[in-house]
């Protein structure tokens, strides 16, 4: 029976959670979109396609990091996670519920930005490219979900928002998501090439036809990055014992 499936129950719970906390949901969705409108469409005209790819990466990464990181840290402090671990719900279902929220955010952010880029930035793409962009950026949120999850399991609820911002904003900037990394000085460019958001943006730029990417290399970097945080998540889950 469907209702008994814990994954679906936790997805439902997450959906209700998002609906009932518009003060969290709306800003998280609108912040990256507003950012793109200001910088991608109003200030730097003529770069709408490139900046759509990079700012959408930025938005998706933010949704993934924050919907996992902050809430996991808080729920851990409240003892909710400990309770879940004691319950028959498998750990996968707990993660699925949260991953659902982050992916939903990712899709909504990419679609909103795409619509704005088409309406005000003269961006024109084949239908397959529009879907490809939404697809790669939603799936590309997964490694950042794992990163948020791991950080949420290891950080205290007070530290989580601050540390996440400290990771999120520089990571976005250094990966060339605000200003293309191609205008960075050489040494900074080589830093960008080591950062996972740079590689997610590279895949998006490839799909949009802005710059071709080395798919094997970029997927490897994103995969390894996801793996590191998956391990950290597993370790964090094991040491879970209320507030530490």
């Amino acid at each position: 029976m469907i209702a008994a499936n814990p994954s679906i129950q936790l997805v439902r719970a997450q959906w209700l959670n998002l609906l009932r906390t518009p003060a969290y949901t709306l800003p998280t969705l609108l912040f990256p979109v507003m950012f793109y409108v200001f910088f991608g469409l109003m200030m730097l005209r003529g770069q709408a396609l490139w900046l759509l790819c990079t700012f959408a990466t930025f938005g998706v990464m933010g949704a993934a990091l924050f919907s996992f990181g902050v809430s996991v840290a808080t729920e851990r402090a409240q003892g909710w996670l400990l309770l879940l671990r004691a319950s028959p719900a498998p750990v996968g279902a707990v993660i699925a519920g949260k991953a659902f929220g982050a992916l939903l955010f990712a899709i909504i952010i990419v679609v909103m930005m795409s619509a704005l880029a088409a309406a005000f930035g003269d961006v024109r793409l084949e239908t397959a490219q529009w879907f490809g962009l939404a697809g790669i950026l939603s799936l590309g949120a997964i490694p950042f979900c794992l990163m948020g999850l791991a950080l949420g399991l290891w950080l205290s609820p007070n530290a989580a928002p601050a540390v996440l911002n400290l990771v999120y904003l520089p990571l976005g900037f250094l990966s060339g998501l605000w200003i293309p990394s191609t205008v960075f000085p050489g040494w900074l460019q080589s830093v960008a090439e080591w950062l996972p958001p740079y590689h997610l943006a590279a895949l998006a730029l490839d799909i949009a036809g802005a710059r071709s990417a080395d798919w094997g290399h970029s997927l490897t970097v994103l995969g390894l990055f996801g793996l590191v945080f998956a391990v950290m998540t597993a370790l964090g889950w094991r040491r879970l014992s209320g507030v530490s």
Partner: protein
Amino acid sequence: MKSLIGISLVLLGAIATLLLLPGPLEGHRGVTAIEGVRVFDGERVIEDATVLIAEGRITGVGADLSVPDGAETIDGEGRTLLPGLIDAHVHAYGSARTDALRMGVTTLLDMFRSPADQPMVIRQRQSLDPTNQADLFSAGFLATAEGGHGTQYGLPVPIPESPETADEWVAQRLDEGSDYIKIIIEDGSGWGRTLPTLDAAMVEALVEAAHERGVLAVAHVSTQPAAKMAVRSGVDGLVHLFADAPVDDAFIAMARDSGVWIVPTTPVLAASHGQSVPDWLTGGEHAETRISQQQRTMLSQSFPGSQMRSARWPLVLENVRRLHEAGVTLLAGSDAGNPGTAHGPSLHHELALLVEAGLTPVEALRAATTLPARAFGLEGRGCLQPGCRADLVLVDGNPLEDIRQSVRIDAVWKNGARTERRDEAGDAS
């Protein structure tokens, strides 16, 4: 259950939005016939001709062509049809490519920009699909000395270290997609400054490397000695005319013997020699519908210290005249992207200044069509003959008599599709 419906609705909404998002531009893909029009085909003038375009290319030009049934016909009486113009010196960033296209400039030869999106740029110019952007060829990064001209714009520039590594430097540019190699020879002396610059050995090595790899090498110069050094080093073209001294006989002899071509870039020289942009360029109907406020602002700017050099301005036109009379090939270029210039209008400014210096209107138009296409090996561009790209400008008037009428643009076709004016594109800026 309610939640599942809500989730499904959000996802369906996202899918529906993605399906509704616009695809690449589509224009009229049938046959278009422009009838009874005066044609400049890149070389000469044909009166009262019919021009047929289909599938993005020109399919017929002649006096008594039969127009196929179902063709869209356009009355060309009293109008002149030109090949899409080529600007042989720009710096394309921001909205450059749409701005240029609105004024009939359908191909841009960039002389320094970041090559990041070069693969896309190349794909786009190979396509015959309708577009709202001019096609672009580019030098990518330029070759300059550490701290030299070209490093002041905030874009990091890879520096060629020594003649021994010149080939490697050129190879890197070609990997990035550069179409030709641009070399800076600028010691600042023409502008009352001192700048580090590449020496002759370095320039020669770069030119040789470019030629061995089958691409052109062009040079930025601003003084006659630098121009001579560049020509001696074997460059294919100078992308500026110098204004520090009258062209001397030695230079003319060198230029003639070597076959080097020169892009005078008079609009940027005007802006750096105290000259303001003429009213006929920034006023009138074409300005309302085809030049944006941002472009007007660019056109009203000038370089620091520009007024102090205004006494030197007549020398610019005099040098153009002397080189032209000596038979040196001149290619029209604006250096748009700089203060006092704008993509599109400034190429028309260059045409008018070339005529003021002594070229005939036909010669000036060749300098913006056939000649750059030949110099840069651009196939199907700068020409209005069967087989050429249907990049066309319909002018209300006769620029072959009065070159300033070239701005009175009725319509611009890119890849056979009519492009939009600012008001049609809904651009209120």
